[in-house]
C-alpha cells in the first residue's frame, strides 16, 4: 500500500492518512475522542469518497451553519447533512452512514475531499453546532439519524426500493460497523434486501472486531459473518480493509439481484501503533495523563514528518 502504483491510489492513500492524522490531532487537542474508528475506517471512507461513489458537488456551506432546529412541520429551516454529499439526482449515488459514532472520522473525510473546510471541525461537539459528536441527519455528510445502531440499513433499503420504483440508476452505498450485526434489525434488513432483490445497494462493513465493551468475540460472537451473510442472500466479498485497490475493485463486481457486501477486515490501531497499548478498550480514547497525551503528540509529529518528506 505504501507504494501506490497510480495517481488515484496515491491520492486516496493521502486522504486516508490525512483523515487519521486530522482525527488524532483533534483527539489530542480535545483530550479524547473516537480515535480507533479513524484507524480502522480511514481507507474505507477515503475509497468510498474518492473512488467508489458517484456523488455530485457539495450543496452545503464549507463551514457548517448553526443547528437549524429539529425536523417538524413547523420548521421550514431544517437542513439535511446529505447536501455535503451533493444534491440527490436520479443518476447519482447516495451515501448512508450507519455508525454515527464515527462522525468525527466522516467530518475529517469531508475536509480531506474538499467538501468541508478545516474550520468546520472546530465546531465539533460545540453547543449550538451541527457538527455533533454522534452525528444526526443535520450533521455534515449524514442523511439519516442512525445513532441508535442498526437502523441505517433498513432506511437505506427503503430508499433503494423507492429508487428502483422510480427507475433511478444511482446506487445506494452504506457504511456499516461490525458491531451492528449484533442487532437483530441488521439481519431483518439483509433478509428484506435479498427478498426484494435490491441489487442497487452496496454495503461496506468496517470489521475491526472491537466494540464498546472490548473484543467482539468476548461480548457477542457475530462470526462467521461471511457465511451468515451469504446464507441471507447477499453477494459477499472480503477485503483487506486498508488496501484501497481491493476496496475499490470489489465495488465493480456484478451482484445481480443481490445486495453487495464488502467485509473490510481492518485493524483498530492501523497507522497509530501506540493505540495498541489500550487494547481491548478501543472504543473511546481519553488520555490518562499528560504523559500519555505527549506520546500521542509525538506520534502525530512523526506522522507529519513522514507526510511532508
Amino acid at each position, binding site marked *: 500500500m505504501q507504494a501506490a502504483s497510480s495517481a488515484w491510489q496515491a491520492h486516496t492513500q493521502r486522504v486516508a492518512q490525512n483523515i487519521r492524522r486530522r482525527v488524532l490531532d483533534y483527539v489530542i487537542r480535545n483530550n479524547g475522542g473516537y480515535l480507533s474508528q479513524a484507524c480502522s475506517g480511514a481507507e474505507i471512507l477515503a475509497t468510498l469518497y474518492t473512488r467508489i461513489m458517484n456523488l455530485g458537488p457539495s450543496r452545503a456551506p464549507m463551514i457548517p451553519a448553526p443547528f437549524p432546529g*429539529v*425536523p*417538524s*412541520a413547523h420548521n421550514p429551516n431544517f437542513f439535511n447533512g446529505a447536501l455535503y454529499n451533493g444534491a440527490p439526482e436520479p443518476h447519482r449515488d447516495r451515501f448512508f452512514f450507519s455508525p454515527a459514532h464515527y462522525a468525527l472520522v466522516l467530518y475529517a473525510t469531508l475536509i480531506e475531499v474538499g467538501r468541508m473546510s478545516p474550520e468546520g471541525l472546530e465546531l465539533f461537539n460545540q453547543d449550538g453546532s451541527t457538527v455533533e459528536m454522534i452525528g*444526526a*441527519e443535520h450533521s455534515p455528510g449524514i442523511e*439519516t*439519524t*442512525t*445513532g*441508535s445502531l*442498526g*437502523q*441505517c*440499513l*433498513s*432506511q*437505506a*433499503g*427503503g*430508499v*433503494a*426500493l*423507492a*429508487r428502483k*420504483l*422510480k427507475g433511478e440508476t444511482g446506487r445506494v452505498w452504506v457504511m456499516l460497523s461490525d458491531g451492528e450485526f449484533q442487532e*437483530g*434489525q441488521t439481519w*431483518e*434488513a439483509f*433478509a*428484506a434486501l435479498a*427478498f*426484494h432483490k435490491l441489487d442497487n445497494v452496496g454495503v461496506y462493513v468496517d470489521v475491526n472486531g472491537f466494540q464498546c465493551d472490548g473484543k467482539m468475540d468476548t461480548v457477542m460472537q457475530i462470526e462467521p459473518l461471511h457465511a451468515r451473510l451469504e446464507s441471507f442472500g447477499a453477494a459477499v466479498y472480503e477485503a483487506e480493509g486498508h488496501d484501497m485497490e481491493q476496496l475499490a475493485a470489489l465495488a465493480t463486481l456484478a451482484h445481480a439481484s443481490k445486495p453487495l457486501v464488502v467485509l473490510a477486515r481492518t485493524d483498530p490501531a492501523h497507522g497509530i501503533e501506540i493505540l495498541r497499548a489500550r487494547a481491548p478498550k478501543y472504543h473511546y480514547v481519553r488520555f490518562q495523563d499528560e504523559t500519555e497525551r505527549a506520546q500521542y503528540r509525538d506520534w502525530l509529529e512523526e506522522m507529519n514528518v513522514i507526510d511532508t518528506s
Partner: protein
Amino acid sequence: MASEFEIVTRPHAKNLVAWAKDKPRVVVLSADLTTSCEADTFRDAYPDRFFSMGMAEQNMMGFAAGLAREGFFPYIHTFAVFITRRPFDQLAMSIAYPNLPVRFIGFLPGITTPGGVTHQAIDDIALMRIVPNMTVLEVGDATEVESVLDVAQSINGPVYVRMLRGQVPRLFRETEPLQFNHARIVSQGSDVTILSSGICTEEALRATRALATKGISLHHSHISTHKPFTDPRVLAALHAPRYGVVTLENHLVTGGLGSAVAEMMAEHGIGKKLVRLGLRDEYAHGASREYLMKKYGLDAMALVRAVEQLMGERFGLSEEDLAAVRLTQVHSAAKAEAL
C-alpha cells in the same frame, strides 16, 4: 333484536382500494397480517404498490422511512401492538424524528380482540401521544374508517391511526366525515359532560339514551383526534357541566383520552371533577369484547355509575334498561378473525 345501525363489513378493505386508486405514491407495507389488517384487497388490486416485509417490524419501519424520504406515502398495516411497542425506537428515530409522512394503520385497539395481552393495544395512544411530530387519530365507526385516510394523508408528518376492522357499525352519517382535531358533538347538555372515543362511543350512546329517560342533561362528544388535543369545542364542553366530566376509552386511563382531558382541564383551570373510565393500571386477558368491556368497566353501565357518582344520586337503571336501548347485537356474533 335488530340493530339500530347499519353494520358495515370490512369497510377499510373496500375503502383503501377505492381511495388509493388515483394515488400512485401510496404504498402499503405489511408484516404477515395482510388479510387480518384488511390490506389483502389493496395487495390484489395494486400488487406493484404492496410490499411484504415479513414478521420484521423494526426493519419495516426503516423501509417505510426510506420510501417516505423518496416521495412515497407508506401505509404500514399491522396490529397496533406491533407498531407501538416492538419497534418503538425505530418508529421514533427513523420516522418520527425526521417528520416523515408514514401512516401507521394499527388494528386491534384495546380489548377488541380475544387474542389476549400480547395482541391487545391498551397503551398505544399513550405511546404515540408522547412521540414528538406524531399525530394520533382513532376511528369510532364505519364512516370514520372511510374518511380517516383523507385526514391522515393531509398531515405533514407521521400519523398513527387506531383502526377498526371486521364488522363495524355506522354511527355517523356518511356525509359527515371525520374532521381533524374536531370533536363530534353527539348531544348537548348541562349536568355532565361525557367524552368517548373509539368503540366506547357506541357504549356511551346506550348509556346517554337511558340516562336521558331519567331527565339527565348530558353533553356527549366523540373524540377522534387524540393529538393534537386543542379543539376549542372540547374545551367549551369541559367548562360547561354542573357536576363534572366523564371520559370513556378502550385504553388505559393513563396516557390516553382521560389523561389528555385531565391535562386540558388543569391547564385551563377548570376545577371540576373528572371520572376516567378505562383500564386502570392492569393488563387485560383473552376473552370476548363484551365480557372484557364489562369486567374492566368500559361499558354503558360503567358510564351510568360514573354519572351517578358525579351527581350523587342513583337513577335506578338496570342492565335490562340499557339492553332496551342496545344498539347492536352483531358484535357478539362476530367471530374472532385470524390473529
